[in-house]
């Protein structure tokens, strides 16, 4: 048993594990890389190797700095693994005045162990303001939300470039993705009225193409184009995206054709579409990485270990070398060579 443990603790295996991790990292780099899950193999080997070394290697156990560094490293590896298994990563668009809906979140990545609790998150999107500098450089983003406070009231929050909102453990971060939305009403032949928001392409990135395909609840495919009477975009000036009281019309093509202003409606197959109001929508990135602060702490523990090792090992080494060979010409006396 001890023999096996000692074999597993081999320092050559550590080097092989590091080399294998490097190979996987290169292969996984970029968009066309291999699945990053393969990194689990070399990291798994390093974890086993390190655990075995912590159990058997005297040199590692007796040098406090090195011990702390490697324990920190081990924790980073383990926490990274747990993070991959428990993480959630997705994005969502929420319209001003509308409520966040968990089912609207598009999932990008979700760990096996992640148990979805997004439906416990409740907030209403408030006003959105994004500053632009000349040349369409994005400045500050401020997105106001109101979070339902356990039935007691609402708590106003602003999500910005540096401020995220952590709701129910999920972090909501504002993205560069945002644009105009039109609130439309739909009345089918059954007389029921429902309202929804139609999100146009990201603005001002796609200011030239504010068009979108939309299928009515009755199944008719239409093309909707948002026509802004006074587009807010000022390519060479400072301006702010935020106003929703702009004059606009909605151009409908692809079957039933018309140009509608706010308050107007159009008869289409199976019902009526009415144009209610102009709004903005905000794109959020939603992630759940509760172990990240611990990973950071483990990484700093490792760094602290390195500093300790430097003090107890290298500083002594350098001092004793200096004592036994006082500096004369320098490391290499080149003139003498």
């Amino acid at each position, binding site marked *: 048993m001890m023999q096996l443990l000692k074999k597993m603790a081999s320092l050559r295996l550590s080097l092989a594990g590091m080399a294998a991790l490097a190979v996987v990292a290169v292969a*996984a*780099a970029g968009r066309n890389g291999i699945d990053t899950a393969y990194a689990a193999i070399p990291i798994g080997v390093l974890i086993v190797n390190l655990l075995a070394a912590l159990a058997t290697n005297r040199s590692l156990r007796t040098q406090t700095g090195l011990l702390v560094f490697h324990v920190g490293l081990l924790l980073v590896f383990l926490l990274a693994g747990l993070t991959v298994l428990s993480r959630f990563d997705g994005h969502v668009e929420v319209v001003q005045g509308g409520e966040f809906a968990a089912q609207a979140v598009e999932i990008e990545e979700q760990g096996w162990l992640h148990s979805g609790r997004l439906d416990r998150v409740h907030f209403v999107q408030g006003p959105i303001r994004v500053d632009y500098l000349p040349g369409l450089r*994005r400045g500050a983003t401020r997105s106001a939300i109101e979070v339902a406070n356990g039935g007691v009231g609402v708590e106003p929050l602003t999500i910005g470039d540096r401020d995220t909102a952590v709701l129910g453990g999920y972090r909501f971060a504002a993205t560069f993705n945002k644009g105009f939305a039109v609130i439309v009403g739909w009345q089918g032949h059954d007389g029921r009225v429902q309202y929804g928001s139609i999100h146009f392409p990201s603005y*001002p990135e796609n200011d030239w193409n504010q068009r979108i395909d939309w299928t009515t609840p009755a199944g008719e495919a239409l093309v909707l184009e948002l026509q802004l009477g006074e587009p807010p975009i000022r390519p060479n000036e400072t301006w702010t995206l935020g106003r929703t009281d702009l004059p606009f019309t909605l151009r409908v093509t692809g079957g039933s054709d018309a140009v509608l202003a706010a308050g107007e409606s159009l008869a289409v197959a199976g019902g009526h579409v009415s144009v209610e109001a102009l709004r903005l929508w905000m794109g959020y990135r939603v992630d759940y990485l509760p172990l990240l602060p611990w990973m950071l702490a483990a990484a700093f523990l490792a*760094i602290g270990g390195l500093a300790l090792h*430097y003090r107890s090992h290298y500083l002594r080494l350098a001092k004793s070398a200096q004592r*036994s*060979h006082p500096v004369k010409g320098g490391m*290499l006396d*080149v003139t003498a060579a």
Partner: protein
Amino acid sequence: MSPLLERYAVMVAVALLATGTVAGLIPSTSDTTRHRIATGALAGVVAALGIAIAGRWLRESQGPFLTMYDVLLSNTFSLGLVFIVATGVSEVLRPTSRIVLPLLFGMGVWLTMVPAEAVPLPATFDNPWLWVHVLSGKVFLGLCLVCAAAAVMQLASPGDASEDGNAALWSMYFIAFMAHTVMLVAGAAWAHTAWGRFWSWDGLEVSTLLTWLLIGGTLHARVTFRTMQERVALGLVVGSFVLAFLTFFGLPFLSIGPHKGFV
């Protein structure tokens, strides 16, 4: 400070680097004289580039973090500064100025050839982790440069290597490893706050991870294979600097990754 004055300051720095480089090549100068000239030239370079950076910072209301010009400007400054401090502390590494000065001269010339226009820093980039990341990165690169220069000199004439020179090299390399570790960790924390991803296996991150593994692996290998040829270990030190140099000055400008999310 106007862009023209900034240009003059850069030119002064390049001229000083040229002078220092040429002075280092004169065979008859003693080590002490050569070190005095190198340190004097580099002190001038650090002052001139420090003024250029401060002037640019005030004018553009943002630090030199983004463009190739920014990165070359700030690193020529910081490499010079780290060299002065490192060889002030560790006298035995002073002769490395023979390699460091020509390299900085090359970077200075390169600096004069790239467009100097500032590009606004995306609002999300500006958070405290950026500072930790950038500062530790600069300390790392500076120390790694001194170590690589020392390694090249030992490889070129092994007979002249001294025990204290060797000890100085490896303990400085260990500090470089520490600084690199801080840079890596702060970079991940910064990426998480700036664009929501702490690690995304992009070219730059992978290249940084490779450098970290190479340095850590080299330190490890010296312990694992105690009889390892010193030549191999020194070669790995040089290799890690080359990789780091490519990561700092090559890769970021091949990918547009960090620049996405502008509009």
